[in-house]
């Protein structure tokens, strides 16, 4: 164990973990909206839209995140009309490409989590709302969504942790996130164990915080 290296790499890795957290929060927020959108399409009675949403989630859950990032970062840059369009401002930045890929990926998983939450809501609650004369929109926003969120919290907590680990792939498109910097230090010092211990502990610490936050919200929004 090289204690000096442990102490030296710690501040560098802490700074790098800010990028990791930024990537994580941006993709989670965007992904939540994407997930909610596709979950609504899934529980909708329209068959075509439902199939479309199913296809989306099937493709994004069936392929590795690495392929998705590479298609967006390397693949889209090759298409001329994308380079000429206004989207190029965003798509030429590896940072935004990573966020788009992460958001689409977590969106697919989130849509599955929310869909199963919507489908397990007791129909009696919706019927009760109807018999009280509440209109459908308000039933959806005030009854179905809050219950679905509560139902899906444990699974969504897992998804956040999976996404945290997923952000490490940003290092493959030249971003210097926690894993990127860790790899850089490893390849310059050839001391993988020390760096792994520091970077791994930072990841575990973030995981620990997320885990407890989710537990807190679960308690706060529990029915009892």
């Amino acid at each position, binding site marked *: 164990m090289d204690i000096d290296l442990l102490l030296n790499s710690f501040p560098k890795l802490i700074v790098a973990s800010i990028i990791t957290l930024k990537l994580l929060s941006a993709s989670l927020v965007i992904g939540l909206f994407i997930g909610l959108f596709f979950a609504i399409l899934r529980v909708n009675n329209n068959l075509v839209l439902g199939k479309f949403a199913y296809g989306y989630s*099937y*493709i994004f859950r*069936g*392929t*590795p*995140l*690495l*392929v*998705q990032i*590479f*298609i967006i970062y*390397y*693949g*889209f*840059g*090759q*298409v001329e009309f994308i380079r000429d369009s206004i989207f190029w401002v965003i798509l030429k930045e590896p940072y935004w490409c990573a966020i788009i890929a992460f958001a689409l990926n977590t969106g697919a998983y989130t849509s599955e989590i929310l869909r199963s939450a919507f489908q397990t809501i007791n129909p009696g609650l919706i019927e009760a709302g109807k018999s009280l004369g509440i209109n459908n929109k308000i039933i959806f926003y005030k009854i179905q969504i809050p219950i679905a969120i509560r139902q899906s919290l444990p699974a969504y907590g897992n998804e956040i*942790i999976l996404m*945290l*680990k*997923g*952000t*490490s*792939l940003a*290092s*493959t498109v030249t971003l210097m996130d926690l*894993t990127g910097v*860790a*790899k850089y230090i*490893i*390849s310059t010092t*050839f001391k*993988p*164990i020390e760096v*792994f211990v520091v*970077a*791994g502990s930072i*990841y*575990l610490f973030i*995981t*620990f915080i997320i885990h407890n936050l989710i537990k807190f919200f679960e308690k706060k929004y529990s029915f009892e």
Partner: protein
Amino acid sequence: MELIAFGKTGWGDELLIATLMTLAVSVTAMIIGFIFALIFTPLKLSKNKLLNIIANFYTTVIRGVPELLVIYLFFFGGSGAIMYVASIFGYNEYIEINAFLTGAFSIGIISGAYSTEVFRGALQSIDKGQFEASNVLGFNKLIRFYKIILPQMLRLAIPNLSNVWQITLKDTSLISVTGLVEIMRQSYIAAGSTRDPLFFYTLAAVLYLMLTFLSMKLINKMEIKYSKGFNGY
């Protein structure tokens, strides 16, 4: 179409071999994972506190740390560690472990952590009466495990193991950073030399989708086989 032709002009045969390589790494990693699960599941369920802590440390750390970091640890640290062990036995030459073994081992450790959790869950949900009944009938421990507990465990574990398989299959794409020529690495090479990344990475995605689709079909069949007498099968 020319791009995926077989032979010297296209990338068809290279990609086919790469797909087989992905499959080979995934299966090897899954088997290594099972070995780890077989070691750590009893530790998790044991009454010894220390053994519990060791097993929990393994599953928590591996499931909380990014796969890529674990791969880097073994990629950069693997040959060093083996050389250190070899030097104790007096062998001081440079040893290089090949990319296949490094990759399969690091993905195997990851998939082992997930498999451990699956096995633990399955074992814990087997009715206690099954253990007691086989004791009463005088089966020895080995037969009890293979003929009574394992078949029931598999029925409960297969749906979750199919998730572990999917995760393992997708994780193998990360081994491409070590230079092992699997689907991702081959697409990277092809994309680099033809300057057509969109086509090749989309093709890679299709290949992965095919693998996940076909393996799901296979697993569903296994699920039906092991569910005989349950849920109307």
